[in-house]
């Protein structure tokens, strides 16, 4: 399969793309979650992955980070095929990632400062004072100066997300992944997170992949956006192209139209009794 794709197009990564995804399929057990998804992300580009709840967007993000194995197809990060990387090379590649998880995923047994310092302590030989300065610098960047000695449990939801971003930035990553950065936050804090992403985008020119279902946020930060529905890639393009896209599911998502209710009695009965042994 790899050879076939290599023949289809130029070598992944050679066109300056940071991420190439070809015919990606991901399964949870017997169930296929993602169906034949293909797209590229250029280096320095910010792409938002949109989709409703359960559409498979977080699964796609996890696959891009190598946390879910592909059942078919392939993912190349900087020209390296994730499926075939031996653990040491995978570790080297992941050192170029920064990840902000939906709930922050800060280590509860460490202070905020220790969380941010962890990648530096584990992957560099910097002395303690240098690490401390870098930690303060990263916390300053996300507006959490002075919170080094707080426990994650003492932070609000928005502060946790910003601390997670600070940790993600510690190793000066080339690719930054965000999973639902504004989920569960009030509009003011969510706007703050959007501003932070925009600031990072302008300041560091890093490749940023953001999973979200917040439309306003997605239009604000994205260079390109893609819509996933029921595990399929429905549309991909610049924000203006997406606004003009007439695909029914794209229109439904952007116009915030709920799924139509079932009006035929037989269909309703069928839904209620499906999979039941009657």
């Amino acid at each position, binding site marked *: 399969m790899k050879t076939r794709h290599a023949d289809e197009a130029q070598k992944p990564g050679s066109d300056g793309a940071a991420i190439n995804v070809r015919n990606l399929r991901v399964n949870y057990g017997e169930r296929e979650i993602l169906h034949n998804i293909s797209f590229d992300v250029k280096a320095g580009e910010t792409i938002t992955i949109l989709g409703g709840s359960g559409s498979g967007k977080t699964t796609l993000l996890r696959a891009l980070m190598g946390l879910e194995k592909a059942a078919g197809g392939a993912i190349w990060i900087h020209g390296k095929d994730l499926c075939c990387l031996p653990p040491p090379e995978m570790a080297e590649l*992941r050192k170029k990632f920064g990840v902000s998880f939906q709930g922050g*995923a800060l280590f*509860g047994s460490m202070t905020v400062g220790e969380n941010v310092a962890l990648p530096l302590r584990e992957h560099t030989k910097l002395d303690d004072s240098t690490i401390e300065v870098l930690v303060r610098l990263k916390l300053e960047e996300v507006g959490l100066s002075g919170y080094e000695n707080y426990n994650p449990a003492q932070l609000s939801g928005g502060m946790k997300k910003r601390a997670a971003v600070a940790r993600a930035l510690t190793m000066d990553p080339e690719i930054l992944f965000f999973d639902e950065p504004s989920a569960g936050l009030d509009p003011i804090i969510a706007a703050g997170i959007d501003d932070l992403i925009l600031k990072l985008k302008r300041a560091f020119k890093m490749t940023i992949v953001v999973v979200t279902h917040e439309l306003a946020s997605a239009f604000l930060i994205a260079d390109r956006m893609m819509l996933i529905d029921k595990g399929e890639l429905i549309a991909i393009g610049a924000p203006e192209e997406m606004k003009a896209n007439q695909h029914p599911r794209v229109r439904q998502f952007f116009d915030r139209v709920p799924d139509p209710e079932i009006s035929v009695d037989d269909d309703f009965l069928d839904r209620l009794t499906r999979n039941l042994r009657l």
Partner: protein
Amino acid sequence: MSVMETVGQATINGLAYLGDLTILTGRSLHAIFVAPFQGQRLRTQRAVHQAMAVGVGAVPILSLISFFIGTIMALQSAYELRKLGAMFLVARAVAISVTRELAPLITAIVVIGRSGSAFAAEIGSMKVNEEIDALETMALDPIEFLVAPKLLAMAVMLPCLTIWADFMGVLGGATFGVSAASFTFGSYIQATLSSLARHDIVTGLIKAVMFGVVITAVGCQEGLSTGLGAEQVGRSTTSAVVKSIFLVVAVDLVFTMLFYFTTPR
């Protein structure tokens, strides 16, 4: 599903679980004994932190339980020995049963309750909160980072705790011996020391190391295989305790048989 199919499936599941434990232990041992010579870090600071939690934290409750067990053993053996007029053998009975069997086993059970369950809950919560994923995306192997320091701490601390439990068990027996069996404290200790061979203590300590490995492997494996949701963390914790107790007793049986058949008579 027929009975044969059920038994067969349970056997396969059991063997698969033992396989998982073996792989986890193997990778942890590699991280402790091999990886440091290949330029990777051995996280001694984390291991010391774990050792303090596992070892020092368990001393008060273990002291109390071992003391009571020593006294109970003295009472139980005196019950029969009194009929034979052989009360002087109480010290011997307590010394041998405590050092060979009871101290390692009681220590293991106390540590399962305190630390094995805590390992499962800690790692299970980390799994639910995506902290394990965060470690992986930071290019940190969760087994090297989380499991190996725990294994090192347990393999060192279980024998230390067992020695302490030996001491407290003998002290418990001495309390009965002095108060009800016409021993002086000095004569009881003397009788204990003269009845013990080095082999008795060493076999107990070998078992303790193995128990430490088993408790860590089961606790961490249960944590790492936790599903989604807080309820699953509770299930993992319960499962870690039940499986650890079963496997500790099974390992105890294997090693006791091994020592019995290999010891020259």
